[in-house]
């Protein structure tokens, strides 16, 4: 039986999410898993922007920050339900990405990198400095999502860790499904085309500027939702979520795992989420080891870990 890559990816992902808990030595690993999925969601957005469309962003943590703070602020100030706050955050991120994306996406290569970097830093600065509203660098509390209590009412009792593990896993699955559908759609094909050659993309009638903007907005929504889920499960948020390091992390995870494939990028998110847990023993060297891993992957496995390894297994048949 021949499976499409889309079905295969989704099955692998679903199986991993459902089965790994059986090997968890302690409840703590649910927490790690949930973090991995949250990162996976942001990174799936990067696959659409960078892997499909070939555009880079070093400021996507800014959108994660918007998503996170929407969940902290909207319930407190406007009495909005946290679930609706996730949608509000995504909408604000999308609008910001739309407004800023038009001028920014005219840039290419490192100019685009620096412009998006500025965007991310701006969001982080606002969050840091608007003390009365955001609590500044001290951060602020985020209300309970309330879904776990609802599930309990229906007779499904999950621990906090279990709930966030499965909930974030589910959102990741949906995100991956959407991204994979996009890949095969005419829009996805057009995105990959402009990645290959913008001139040729124009000659076949593709509105390159509009399409890049679409990819930028979509990936901003992914980052925003990821930020929201992070804030909701931590029940606390600090401006770090919008910080430069977080932006870099998103790009690094995607590139490390293989930015051209959804599964690869999520795999990268997994490694960079798990590695610090493993490396806690020598915490001082953590950054160094991560840096070394990055350099080695870029030198020896240019396509990213997963695609390169898969190719080795299959032999050179493609």
């Amino acid at each position, binding site marked *: 039986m021949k499976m499409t890559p889309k079905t295969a990816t989704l099955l692998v992902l679903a199986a991993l999410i459902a089965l790994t808990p059986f090997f968890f030595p302690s409840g703590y690993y649910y927490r790690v898993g949930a973090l991995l999925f949250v990162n996976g969601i942001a990174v799936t957005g990067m696959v659409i922007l960078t892997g499909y469309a070939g555009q880079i962003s070093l400021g996507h943590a800014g959108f994660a920050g918007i998503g996170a703070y929407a969940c902290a602020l909207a319930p407190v100030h406007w009495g909005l339900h946290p679930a609706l706050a996730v949608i509000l955050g995504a909408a604000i991120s999308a609008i910001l990405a739309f407004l800023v994306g038009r001028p920014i996406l005219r840039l290419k290569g490192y100019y685009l990198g620096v412009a998006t970097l500025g965007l991310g830093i701006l969001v982080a600065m606002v969050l840091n400095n608007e003390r009365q509203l955001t609590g500044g660098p001290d951060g602020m509390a985020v209300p309970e999502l309330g879904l776990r209590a609802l599930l309990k009412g229906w007779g499904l009792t999950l621990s906090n860790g279990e709930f966030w593990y499965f909930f974030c896993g589910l959102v990741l699955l949906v995100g991956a499904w959407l991204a994979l559908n996009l890949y095969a759609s005419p829009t996805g094909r057009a995105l990959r085309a402009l*990645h290959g050659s913008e001139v040729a993309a124009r*000659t076949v009638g*593709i509105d390159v500027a509009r399409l890049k903007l679409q990819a930028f907005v979509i990936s901003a929504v992914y980052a925003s939702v990821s930020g929201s889920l992070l804030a909701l499960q931590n029940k606390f948020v600090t401006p770090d979520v919008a910080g430069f390091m977080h932006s870099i992390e998103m790009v690094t995870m995607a590139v490390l795992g293989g930015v051209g494939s959804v599964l690869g990028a999520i795999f990268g998110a997994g490694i960079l989420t798990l590695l610090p847990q493993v490396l806690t023993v020598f915490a001082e060297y953590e950054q160094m080891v991560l840096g070394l891993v990055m350099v080695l992957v870029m030198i020896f496995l240019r396509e990213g870990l997963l695609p390169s390894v898969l190719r080795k297994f299959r032999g050179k048949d493609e």
Partner: protein
Amino acid sequence: MLTVEGLRSRYGRIEVLHGIDLEVQSGEIVTVVGANGAGKTTLLRCLSGVQPVSSGTITFRGEALVPVPAYRRLARGLAQSPEGRQIFTNLTVEENLRLGAFLFADDRVEKDMDDAFRMFPVLKEKRNLAAGGLSGGQQQMLAMARALMGRPSCLLLDEPSMGLAPIIVAQIFEVVKGIRDLGVTTLLVEQNAFGALKIADRGYVMETGHITMSGGAEELIADPRIREAYLGI
């Protein structure tokens, strides 16, 4: 069908087209020949809209073309097979063809693809392979097939013979001749003056941003100046 009048274009401060006039009638194959750096590709880039025009007009099927952005020109019926082929190397052959029909979502896309495969059987064999793996000649065929998928009334071909072996070049020119039978008008820009003039109805000779000669293709082939300068006879 296509009229260019007084077209000027520049790269920064350096003007490379100093007022080009040319005309393509419906159903013709018209070729623009000239040496490297004469401005042929710049001319085509102006026509397809990826190069800014500093003055002059382009009229296509009675409409001013200059204000129309590049990606809208295919919808007006003007397709381009760009220089250096510019196929989407990371996509499959079939995906490349489907992108050629990006503007359409009807049943004719499948029919057009069958036609393309009939015209270029080698593409059918390789339809699921990455286009980057095709040979130069096959990539050129793919570029032309992709342009035809956009259902153009006029096709702009930029140096289809570039970098190809002589035997493949002959094949490519045969294909260009065949495009006329599809009812598509062709403007062919070529360094290979002899090959291009042999299949064309009319020709223009371009030198350093000017049209220096024009006329019927047979006439030009017979012209001693051309024979000396371009045909090496």
